[in-house]
């Protein structure tokens, strides 16, 4: 028994060692290659959040943060379903404007890439006035159309 216990302990120690080594390696890997492996590192807090009303959630990570006027920039748009799973292969349209001024966006931003499952690159965003803006993210999944409207103040 004693011998067995010792063997068990040894195994345990080796197992913990391997586990720690793997964790250290993983940590180093993430640290060194983080941005290239996983795209730009988004902060965990999105700049804007919206819901489709039928269970989908849209998170916007602006690559110009905090948002400001008169500078063209990109967004990462993350879409997840009701279970929090990333939504891939969505056909996305982005529109918007200033409801109080009766005009749209100054540019025609477009999704140019799905940079990882459920996260899309939107290029060509710009705001040209301070005040209340409304952005509508529309997305098609198969034959279903969904949209999330987001209002914010600049």
């Amino acid at each position, binding site marked *: 028994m004693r011998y067995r216990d010792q063997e068990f302990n040894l195994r345990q120690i080796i197992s913990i060692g391997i586990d720690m080594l793997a964790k250290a390696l993983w940590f180093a890997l993430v640290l060194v290659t983080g941005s290239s492996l996983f795209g730009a590192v988004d902060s965990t807090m999105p700049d804007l959040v919206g819901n489709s009303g039928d269970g989908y959630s849209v998170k916007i990570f602006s690559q110009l943060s905090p948002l400001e*006027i*008169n500078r*063209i920039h990109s967004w990462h748009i993350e879409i997840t379903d009701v279970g929090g799973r990333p939504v891939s292969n969505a056909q996305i349209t982005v529109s918007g404007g200033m409801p109080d*001024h*009766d*005009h*749209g*966006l*100054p*540019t*025609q*931003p*477009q999704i140019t890439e799905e940079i990882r499952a459920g996260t899309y690159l939107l*290029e*060509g965003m710009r705001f*040209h*006035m*301070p*005040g209340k803006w409304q952005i509508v993210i529309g997305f098609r999944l198969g034959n279903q159309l969904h949209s999330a409207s987001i209002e914010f103040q600049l």
Partner: protein
Amino acid sequence: MNKLPGILALLLVAVLAWRYVALPLPPRWSEQEVRLIQSLALASLPDLPPDPGNHLADDPAAAELGHRLYFDTRLSSNGKVACANCHQPELMFTDGLALAMGKSIGPRHTPSLVGIAYSPWFYWDGRKDSQWSQALAPLEAAVEHDSDRVAILRLILADQRYREMYENLFGPLPAPDQLPDAASPLGNAERLATWNSMETATQTAVSTAFSNLGKALAAYQRRLLPGPAKFDDYATAIATDPGTMQAVSLSRTEVGGLQLFLGKAQCISCHNGPLFTNHEFHNTGVFAIAGQLPPMGRYDGIRTAREDPFNCLGEFSDASTSECIELRFARDENDLVGAQKTPTLRNVTLTAPYMHGGQFKTLAEVIQHYNDAPTSMLNHNEAKPLGLRAIEASQLEAFLHTLTAPLTTEKKWLAAPNY
């Protein structure tokens, strides 16, 4: 009956007071107003954005070549027109005229060049997407320099100093024996016919060298930048005590005008940021220029920019596709019919008359126009009537005169080269 004159007099006093007596200022700016004031201050101006299409944009030797070209009337067909004729340093690079006068009278008012390197678009309708590409157009426009790219390259080849400056920057020029005297794809029938008879390789070599001259001109014009004005001193003064309205830099009338600028008059909707422009296009119901149809504005401008061989995506640009974000994601919809570019309000005291056709001689007329917000001749006027009282209009005008100051640009660039 004998009370009537008294009542009438009282009424008259009330009406006059309503029109001409200023409301007292609140003691402090709101947090939002403080934020907006600081966003307009020159201290908030970011570094000059790079011009990815022009690899020599920040090269001092390119700026020196551009400086010489800018003041050189030999670049015109009659030897009398230079860029500096219309964009005069002493008038903040404008000309004081309603419509530009090159070789003959042009279709538009001359805008200031100060700080324009920050804009992604050039011309009132934004038909050019870079400063270097814009600089090429007047050289070949019949109402401006009325020259052509081949004639201009012949001048550069013949002038020893130009030739050396050019070749040090860009490498060898096309050999003169390959070139006709005058030719351009944008010229009159004769120049066009000669252009069409040239080999494609020669055409490309000529257009490349011509585009390089635009890049030198842009390297010079990028350096024309605004200096801090009375308003900026005020913004600095209130920065230390953010809520206060009292600072020696601005009078009570001017402060009242600033408050209107941010609020009731809604000027800041478009005239925002430290250059007092959003570099965007808006239809504000300005009536057509006498003798012209109402212009299509940005609706046509973006279409022209997309087809321009000298645009960001074209073969003469130094930019990669990914750097041409403005051009690739520009909007072109119907609401841009009749939209003109928001001009800077920096130095506005010295840049009269105003609007794309110089339709208004004074700032008071401009303010009256926005106060009325008339129906647009084409499409719809984005602006709504403001309901400014007479005293408010004059406060606003007083504030606009606090935005003028000498440029930060080194003195040697503000006159014809003498080095």
